[in-house]
């Protein structure tokens, strides 16, 4: 799987998206990261593993605390470029679908 596939797979889950949003605000420990979620620590680690596999997030154990951080370099500039163009287009094509449903016969006069 390409990095981009792994990235999209990692971000396809609302919990992992919430984790990335949290980390975009700054590094934190795994327990801080887990705090908003009603799930076991092993479950949190599983999500973290997928985020790390995608390269979006890195973690490091110092003493007894594992600290997580965003790894912006992992999203190469080309991937950032593609992601932005693609998400722009996905949103536009959603709107196009709604527009076509509303006006199936042709553009409104």
């Amino acid at each position, binding site marked *: 799987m390409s990095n981009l596939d792994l990235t999209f797979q990692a*971000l*396809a889950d*609302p919990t992992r*998206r919430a984790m*990335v*949003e949290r980390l*975009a*605000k700054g590094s934190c420990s795994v327990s801080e990261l887990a705090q908003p979620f009603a799930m076991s620590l092993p479950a949190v680690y599983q999500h973290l593993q997928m985020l790390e596999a995608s390269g979006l997030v890195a973690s490091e154990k110092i003493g007894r605390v594992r600290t997580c951080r*965003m790894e*912006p370099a992992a999203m*190469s*500039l*080309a*991937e*950032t*470029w*593609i*992601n*932005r*163009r*693609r*998400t*722009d*287009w*996905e*949103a*536009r*094509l*959603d*709107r*196009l*679908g*709604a*527009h*076509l*449903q509303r006006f*199936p*016969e*042709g*553009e*409104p006069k």
Partner: protein
Amino acid sequence: MTDHSIAHGVFTIERTYPDVAPQRVFDAFATAAGKQAWFFGPGDWQIAQREFDFRPGGRERVKGRRSSGDESFFDAVYFDIVPGERIVYAYDMWHEGRKLSVSLATLEFHAVAGGTRLRLCEQGAFLDGYDDAGRREHGTIELMDRMETTLRA
């Protein structure tokens, strides 16, 4: 900027629109009024200026502005148009007066059972690694929001 570089990227998106003919979907790309309904940027982005000349060699220019004041500029030339079937255009994309990328976009409209399949492909050259680093955090969060919207749709 002293460092010049190019990164290349390609992506394809396919969508099927039920109950509409290819010509109908094509028309939504072929008129300024049709495009206005759905072709715009993220968030509170608003069209400040639009020029639309839909024919081979014709130009489309869209200047957009966000409430924060930053401006983007899309400048395209249509290269190939087959009514109801295909559109090919090339464009460059500017943000705050800097050229971000130059791309080739192709759109294909296929009749499928009960509707139209749209196939979009973009091939781009991303220039000089220009990425608004100060907004990376903002961009990431925005990306998440957009993914959420897309995935819920």
